[in-house]
């Protein structure tokens, strides 16, 4: 299977890794610029809504921050795909590869904790789901839940978003690349792309927590997972599957055979996940019922 065209570098499509790093830098800068406008409120949603409505500039910066997080994930996923396609994992030691898997995990949690800290109806539901999954974890679930959300303190997940997960991601990126500066061309290219996107499609912050909604969807990258949780028991979809994925990815350097099995497994899972996301996004109606019901 020849998919090399997906990873060919040219003027309009620089490398996925570099694109991902540029998106992260833009997310960091826009997040840093937003900080002075943020005044913590007991209701997290109010705090975010206040600085969104403060001026056009803050709304633009929030959109830029949000879209750069999304691009960071997409480019990061494509970069992982590139590693699988080119069998780069074979040249890594287990330790270095494991640090990359941790980087992928912390990148995802950094972006997801941003979604959770908005305090909207959707993010509060996502928080309940995460707590629900953690309560099924045999060891350490309660502790992890308290660590992430600390009862009654909605700002804790925000603190994790701006410090814990972001700092850990940056450290692991530095270990991976030995630099944090993106190539100039790619950085400005990404900045122009995201600026245009943020100007034409300003990002909202979801519904207020009190709004009665008959369907609640998580962030786009977790809709497939939300759908899976509806089909399978929590221990299977919420605990075993992520654990098996994490374990399989971590052990890839030990798979030295020169065939495409890993690539096919990766593609099959991605295809399955996209289908699940499609069902969740387009075919679910009121009360999370399939439209034909």
């Amino acid at each position, binding site marked *: 299977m020849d998919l090399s065209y997906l990873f060919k570098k040219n003027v309009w499509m620089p490398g996925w890794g570099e694109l991902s790093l540029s998106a992260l830098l833009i997310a960091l800068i826009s997040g840093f610029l937003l900080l002075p406008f943020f005044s913590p409120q007991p209701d997290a949603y109010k705090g975010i809504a206040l600085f969104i409505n403060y001026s056009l500039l803050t709304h633009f910066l929030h959109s830029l921050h949000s879209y750069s997080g999304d691009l960071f994930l997409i480019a990061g996923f494509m970069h992982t795909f590139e590693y699988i396609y080119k069998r780069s994992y074979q040249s890594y030691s287990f330790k270095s590869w494991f640090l990359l898997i941790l980087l992928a995990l912390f990148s995802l949690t950094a972006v997801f904790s941003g979604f959770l800290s908005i305090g909207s109806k959707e993010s509060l539901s996502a928080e309940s789901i995460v707590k629900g999954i953690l309560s099924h974890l045999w*060891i350490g679930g309660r*502790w992890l839940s308290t660590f992430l959300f600390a009862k009654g303190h909605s700002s804790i997940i925000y603190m994790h978003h701006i410090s814990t997960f972001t700092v850990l991601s940056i450290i692991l990126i530095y270990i991976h690349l030995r630099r944090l500066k993106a190539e100039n061309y790619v950085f400005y290219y990404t900045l122009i792309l995201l600026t245009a996107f943020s100007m034409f499609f300003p990002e909202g912050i979801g519904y207020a927590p009190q709004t*009665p909604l*008959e369907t*609640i969807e998580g962030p786009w990258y977790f809709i497939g997972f939300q759908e899976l949780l*509806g089909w399978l*028991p929590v221990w299977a979809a919420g605990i075993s599957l992520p654990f098996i994925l994490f374990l399989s990815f971590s052990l890839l350097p030990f798979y030295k055979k020169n065939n495409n099995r890993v690539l096919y497994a990766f593609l099959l899972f991605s295809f399955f996940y996209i289908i699940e996301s499609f069902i969740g996004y387009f075919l679910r109606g009121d*009360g*999370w019922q399939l439209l034909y019901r």
Partner: protein
Amino acid sequence: MQKSKKISRNAFLKKISVFFSLISGVILFSTYGKTLNRFFTHARIYRIPLKRIKNRIYENDRFFILKENNKFTVLSKKCPHLGCTLQRINSVDIIVCPCHGSRFHITGKFISGPAAQNMKRLNYKTDSNNIIIIKSS
């Protein structure tokens, strides 16, 4: 013939101590986990004035209270599946979960969906003016 790799005594002791620490950590955590959980749980008390419960069904952001023949049924609004806040469909006596589509009758009885269990009933007391709900979390 391949030579077997020699491992130094220090390295061997280091590896074996990490291994046994992990095993004992798991055993300790699974044995005393429930005791530790007590530090993370606490009960909350909610008072709802009885005069507010005028209709057959009363709801706020945490509970559904069903009043039939002057008897109350207090149900948690948290879905027993993964904790999303349940919504009532006003025209019928059905409660749905907006996150994964579980459905319940207004009495809390499970109808369909991934929750596969009834809604959680909460203990309550009444005094002359209030209904007092004790909820552990």
